């Protein structure tokens, strides 16, 4: 510190400036950290590694055509795992995603919705086709062999398990997270399945712009 001893007030002033400067640094660091945390994707299992979500899969769509992770490139995607026998949360989530897409206006073509079944036993391409046709947005619905579905779920860190019921029927327990993948096919954000269309639109508009 090159302070002039002639002026005894200078050192405190320097100290003051230093303190203010340090304070600004701390705040800036806090803001940066907050921003980083906000943008840090959290996976189904609470993982904070973007690279851990997403990966290779090889499924078929509702028209029986192959659909793999390569098909996710070039466009934003909302990805949701569920099953058509689910009466409550799955249709709600798909519906909100569909409405969100609608509200994106001219940007709606930049976002695709992908529904991946965790119940390939019952969700054949035909079943999926009639199911997703009821939603306004064009939804890609994917199924495949149990192994292929397991691979896709693993790539997305999605847990699912058959839960048998006393009547011989079964329900599926499954991770209910909506993943946002960017046009490079990288995991960017998540929504909870009860997110409103408005919340999804607001976030997507920020991400896409």
């Amino acid at each position: 510190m090159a302070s002039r001893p002639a002026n005894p007030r200078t050192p405190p002033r320097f100290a003051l400036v230093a303190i203010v400067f340090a304070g600004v640094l701390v705040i800036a660091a806090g803001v940066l950290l907050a921003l980083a945390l906000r943008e840090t994707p959290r996976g189904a299992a609470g993982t904070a590694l973007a690279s851990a979500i997403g990966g290779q899969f090889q499924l078929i769509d509702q028209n029986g055509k192959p659909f793999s992770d390569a098909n996710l490139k070039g466009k934003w995607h909302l990805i949701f795992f569920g099953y058509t026998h689910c009466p409550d949360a799955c249709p709600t989530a798909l519906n909100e995603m569909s409405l969100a897409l609608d509200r994106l206006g001219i940007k709606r073509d930049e976002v695709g919705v992908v529904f991946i079944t965790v119940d390939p036993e019952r969700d054949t391409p035909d079943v999926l086709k009639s199911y997703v046709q009821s939603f306004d947005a064009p939804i890609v619905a994917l199924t495949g062999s149990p192994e292929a579905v397991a691979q896709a779920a693993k790539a997305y860190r999605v847990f699912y398990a058959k839960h048998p019921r006393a009547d011989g029927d079964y329900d599926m327990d499954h991770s209910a997270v909506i993943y946002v993948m960017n046009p490079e096919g990288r995991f960017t954000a998540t929504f909870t399945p009860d997110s409103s269309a408005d919340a999804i639109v607001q976030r997507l508009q920020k991400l896409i712009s």
Partner: protein
Amino acid sequence: MAQTAQVEIKDAWARATPGKAENGAAYLTIQSPVADRLVGVFSPVAKKAGLHTMTMEGSVMKMRPLGGVDLPANQPVALKPGGMHIMLEGLNEPLQAGKSFPLTLNLEKAGQKQVEVTVEKAGAAGPGGQAGTDMPMPAKR
């Protein structure tokens, strides 16, 4: 709320089901003047109807059948999206918005009660067109 001598069932509604979806869900609010228990449901629109609940454990969604739903005296109990619901399994035909269907509730003390369930559009968040949104209905059929 004035005391009612009878079991009161309000806002019975269901969501239109997508495509040939085999299952649907119905919701309602029920209030009993005395402590009672809802132990079963029946509807001619589905092969099977039952009380179910959806819970989230972390990010994992689970559907479970319920043996019954306790109805404390004079307290409205709501079956609503994201929680308890009446699961309609093996629908004879899709639930279409604008239509309605009968539902019978079995109560331990009050016996059977019938209610008419209104089918709202698939995007509805509640009865009477309480849509979560103002967009047109997504169901095309």
